[in-house]
């Protein structure tokens, strides 16, 4: 009977930590951080949402997605298009009803694919469904033909490169290099007010938590086990009678949807979306964050994204050159020495601390309770 209370505590430790983190993020941080810092932190959380998706596709499914910036960008542009239209409509000086960059490019009518985005609900739905559908289409067509591993990674990267060149080239439709920006209004409210920013932050925290729980559930389900099996030995899974194509396509699409949601939240928080935020290099940085945090752990991946982006804002301005060397070195060090990332390191440290010292003294027979954490 005496072991019940600690056992219960061990079992509840995960959920309790999770709730404590959310409570701290929702109640404490808005009080502690000034609005500018809170806004920055909300941006990092958007990248954490993307990181959850990459962890699902890469850590679980073994699909190295070097082009997640594309899906992040699709979500971000869906939201950005709506915000641009809403702000144009609210602007009394703009008589054309067209976004500024379209007027400058000589357009007289709104392009057809912009029209659905006048309504916020369509924009939000598109921010989730368009990345999901794009990933499902690409994933299905290549996984079906057993194109995988490095080939898949290279195709992803090529997609990111092509997407960015397209966005820059079609300036009259997409805003070009400048991207979409200058949207102060969402659903009749000013986006720049502190209350709006706090609301956005709260939504981001809750979304992150919800997606974390969802992906955790996916990982612990039979389907999650199947993904691991496919990652480690796809052909054997096929011999066992499963169809890896569908399992992989689903994981890839879910991962892309998470990236799309991250992008859609990112735009009103950041106030801009442009091709330089979603190209080949930003995409690979998203992967770096997950590698550092720990690709096999959802919590690790999300933490990695927050840490690497926080480090970026801190270091990039003061010593840009050194920061790039450090990033490169981090890539090498993490892959070479800690493939499980920070999550793996903390787990190792935890077991090293709690494990009885078997090297110096013989293991204490059957007395496992003495090994409880100090």
């Amino acid at each position, binding site marked *: 009977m005496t072991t019940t209370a600690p056992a219960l505590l061990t079992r509840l430790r995960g959920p309790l930590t999770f709730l404590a983190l959310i409570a701290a993020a929702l109640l404490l941080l808005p009080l502690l951080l000034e609005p500018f810092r809170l806004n920055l932190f909300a941006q990092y959380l958007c990248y954490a949402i993307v990181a959850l998706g990459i962890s699902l596709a890469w850590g679980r499914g073994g699909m190295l997605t070097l082009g997640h910036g594309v899906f992040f960008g699709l979500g971000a542009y869906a939201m950005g298009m709506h915000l641009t239209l809403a702000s144009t409509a609210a602007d009394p000086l703009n008589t054309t009803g067209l976004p500024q960059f379209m007027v400058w490019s000589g357009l007289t009518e709104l392009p057809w694919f912009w029209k659905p985005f006048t309504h916020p609900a369509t924009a939000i739905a598109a921010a989730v469904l368009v990345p999901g559908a794009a990933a499902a289409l690409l994933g299905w067509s290549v996984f079906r033909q057993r194109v995988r591993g490095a080939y898949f*990674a*290279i195709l992803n990267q090529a997609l990111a490169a*092509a997407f960015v060149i397209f966005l820059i080239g079609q300036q009259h439709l997409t805003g070009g290099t400048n991207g979409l920006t200058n949207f102060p209004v969402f659903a009749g409210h000013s986006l720049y007010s502190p209350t709006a920013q706090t609301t956005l932050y709260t939504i981001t925290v809750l979304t992150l938590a919800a997606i974390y729980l969802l992906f955790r559930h996916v990982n612990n389900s039979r389907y999650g086990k199947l993904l691991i099996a496919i990652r480690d030995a796809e052909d054997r899974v096929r011999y066992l009678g499963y169809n890896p194509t569908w399992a992989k396509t689903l994981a890839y699409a879910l991962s892309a949807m998470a990236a799309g949601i991250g992008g859609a939240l990112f735009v009103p928080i950041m106030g801009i979306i442009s091709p330089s935020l979603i190209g*080949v290099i930003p995409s690979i940085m998203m992967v770096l964050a997950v590698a550092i945090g720990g690709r096999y752990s959802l919590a690790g991946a999300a933490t990695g994204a927050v840490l690497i982006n926080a480090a970026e804002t801190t270091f990039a301005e003061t010593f840009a050159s050194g920061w790039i*060397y450090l*990033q490169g070195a981090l890539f090498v060090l993490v*892959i070479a020495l800690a493939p499980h990332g920070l999550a793996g390191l903390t787990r190792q440290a935890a077991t090293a601390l709690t494990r009885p010292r078997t090297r110096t003294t013989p293991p204490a027979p059957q007395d496992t309770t003495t090994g409880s954490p100090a």
Partner: protein
Amino acid sequence: MDALITQLPVGLAIGAVLLLAALGLNFTFGQMGVINMAHGEFIMIGAYTAYVLHAWIGVNPAYSLIVALPVAFAVTGTLGWLLELGLIRHFYGRPLDTLLLTFGIGMILQQAARDTFGAPNVDVPAPPWLTEGITLGDIRIHYARLFILTLALTAVAAIAYYLNRSRQGRQMRAVIHNRDLAAVTGINTRRVDATTFFIGSGLAGIAGVALTLTGPTGPTLGTNYIVDAFLVVVIGGLGQLRGTVIAAFALGMLNATVEAWTDASLAKLIAFTAIVALLQARPQGLFTVKTRALT
């Protein structure tokens, strides 16, 4: 059709550079399963080698290009050899990890170039005997483009000779076909791997020198070509020459012609769609090396 003909020299020149870049990638990928993302930076280093020879050491521009080719081959080849020796050989069998690892190396090399030569582009003057061109009907052919094409074809011929006639090249093919069997027959696969890496990286250096003829040289020079070079490998198929040559010129022509009649921004998306469509029919690329090894 007109566009196809007038763009022919441009497309062939782009294809030739892609070919030089992809040759090295193809063999390191096909033989060792290593995705070397730093390959693009080796191209950049090759280009800067030509710049250093001209601007720092002051080699006469009339023949600095000819000097730069072997020097760049040696410089980038040695870098690649060191990279294989120090890092990559510990990660054989983990292709995705080598990809990220070498990307980190690439970032460091790129920033080193930026710190050494400055962020703005530099120019390497073409030798006087390559600045002219000839006109055949509607087609304007620059000697520089002709030179790049000749260079690429020479490289292909040299590699073909190496693979088919020389002892080391045959050993390399044996390792590509089946590493374990090759090792059993007494081939020193470690040495073959190192040689392959040296040659592959050296070819990147030559591609870099060739690129100085087409435009300015900057720290991000390689990044612009690396994605396309990898696509050439994916389309062409691993471990053999034929597919790489065809795929390089096909992608070069596709880029040049589609750019001519729509605009550059759509060209890449169209090319990407075409590649995914091609993979539906030939998931392993155009040509494959038949092997009995389990994958």
